[in-house]
């Protein structure tokens, strides 16, 4: 269980997160959504140990502040929003970097399987720098999956922290990635994802945390959080849920794509 209690974060004198509290359960996909600048990524960064914070964050009962890097790496893997790679590694080598710590040891099968999960198995020997942004993002996800291949190898659930994992992907791969997250949660692991895309969030999330201006505005099941009123307040924009367009403009929902595959 990820328990965030009274989290306050300051960047210089700016009070960026104000008394944020949330709970994410294992076996569920928890999505943090909100407009730009609402503090979603900052909350995630606090939970992954990147920034200093006041308040309490515990993961599987361990206080984050007392976990060493390697101890945390065994419990959770983090997919950042954007990645740089300093040297000309190949795709398989990047995935193997994820293998180096975490519990998997140096087993190449795990690396190959992780690549297969993100539909990049045939890319193993290509140079990372030659790939498109979306492909690179999927390689990073493979790296993350190589670090934590099993959602629940023992009594402790493992966690995936994903920062806008589908931002640069096409719709097919967006569904693929979200399905990976869903499967991970179904296997007993915990998933916390910062999302921009409300449709995908509605499809895959078990719990939605809606943030605005550094505070949690709403927290609960999708149908409870995604109401016209709540969303409009958060995004400061007149929004209507579950409402098809009034004219004959074409529209495409990811929900539909999934239905076709099934």
């Amino acid at each position: 269980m990820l328990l965030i209690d009274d989290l306050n974060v300051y960047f210089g004198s700016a009070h960026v997160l104000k008394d944020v509290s949330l709970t994410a359960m294992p076996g569920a996909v928890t999505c943090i959504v909100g407009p730009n600048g609402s503090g979603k990524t900052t909350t995630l960064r606090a939970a992954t140990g990147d920034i200093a914070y006041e308040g309490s964050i515990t993961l599987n009962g361990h206080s984050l502040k007392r976990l060493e890097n390697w101890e945390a790496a065994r419990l959770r893997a983090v997919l950042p929003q954007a990645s740089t790679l300093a040297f000309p590694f190949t795709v398989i080598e990047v995935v193997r970097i994820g293998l180096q710590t975490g519990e998997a040891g140096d087993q190449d099968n795990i690396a190959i399987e992780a690549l297969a999960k993100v539909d990049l198995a045939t890319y193993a020997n290509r140079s990372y720098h030659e790939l498109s942004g979306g492909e690179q993002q999927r390689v990073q996800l493979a790296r993350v999956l190589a670090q934590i291949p099993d959602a629940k190898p023992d009594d402790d659930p493992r966690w995936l922290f994903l920062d806008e994992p589908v931002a640069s992907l096409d719709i097919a791969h967006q569904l693929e990635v979200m399905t990976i997250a869903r499967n991970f949660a179904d296997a007993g692991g915990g998933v916390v994802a910062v999302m921009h895309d409300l449709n995908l969030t509605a499809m895959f999330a078990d719990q939605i945390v809606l943030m605005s201006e550094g505070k949690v505005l709403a927290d609960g099941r999708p149908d409870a959080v995604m109401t016209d009123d709540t969303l409009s307040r958060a995004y400061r924009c007149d929004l209507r849920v579950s409402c098809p367009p009034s004219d004959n403009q074409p529209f495409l929902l990811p929900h539909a794509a999934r239905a076709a595959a099934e």
Partner: protein
Amino acid sequence: MVAIPDTGRAVPLDRLAFARRMHVVLFLFLVFVSLLSLTVGATGITPWDMAFALLRGEAPEAMASVVLFDIRLPRLIMGIVVGAALAVSGAVMQGLFRNPLADPGIIGVSAGAGLGAVAAIVLGAMLPFGLFDIFGAYLVPIAAFFGGWVSTILLYRVATRGGVTSVATMLLAGIALAALAGAVSGLLIYAADDRQLRDLTFWGLGSIAGASWAKVMVAGPLIAIAVLLAFALARGLNGLALGEAAAAHIGIPVQKMKNRAILTVAAATGAAVAVSGGIGFIGIVVPHLLRIATGPDHRALLINSALLGASLLLLADVISRVIIAPAEMPIGIVTAVLGAPVFLWILLRNRGAMGF
């Protein structure tokens, strides 16, 4: 690359295995160059002459003993140790700063060591006579080593706040420090007389000709330990290629790693520069060549760098000893003449593949 039809997977090419096989190849190369180094010299004496003499039951010539044991052998060891130190330090610094153009001096070691040497050469005569006697010929190396440490520690302090070292700050502060060291050196050079200036010039050009057993006994173990410690940084440096935040996420103790990297490089490079002056290019060219040939995985790269750096330095030393015999060309000239074109060739050939 092969796609196995039933699983649709490819067999990943293992650059790491290839790189590990290179350990053997490079080791053999080093052995070969070491033998060459022992065999070649202005006097024409070879170890085989001595071996045959011993086999025939004769006592070897005195001069042969001196040449082989007091000149060539310490020089061989020094060459291996200095070459390995420079190449590994270069690779570690490139990994730490995530930039293939970093060289070992980037943490201030070279600037400080240079300043120490200049100070010792120009001001050494002003030391109280007793002190000068104690240090004697070792005044310059000791001052250079000391200078290298002082400047590294200074840079580290400037760049580290709240227990976190910012490599970007270190880089910029290093530029400032190098400028300052250059200014102070300039002052000392201005005050130097003709003889001191020549000594400075020769120091700057680098040489392992002054390799004595005393120097080898002190610098050798120090560099060997530092280089071995550096090898343990390999996984950390791989992770660091993803960025510091990602490296921390996969469990690497980033700050500890930085500390250890800076420490080992300061020790290895400081000692190397102290005993051999300013030898350039090995630190940049060797890791580069290896990355292109065998991939950037540091687990193999660091070891291969040590082996190849040692070999190339020895090779440069052989050339410096024979090319204008009986005089000797400073080794820094040879490494520059060989290194610069190779460096250019690398850059031109691989512009796309290197990610910049």
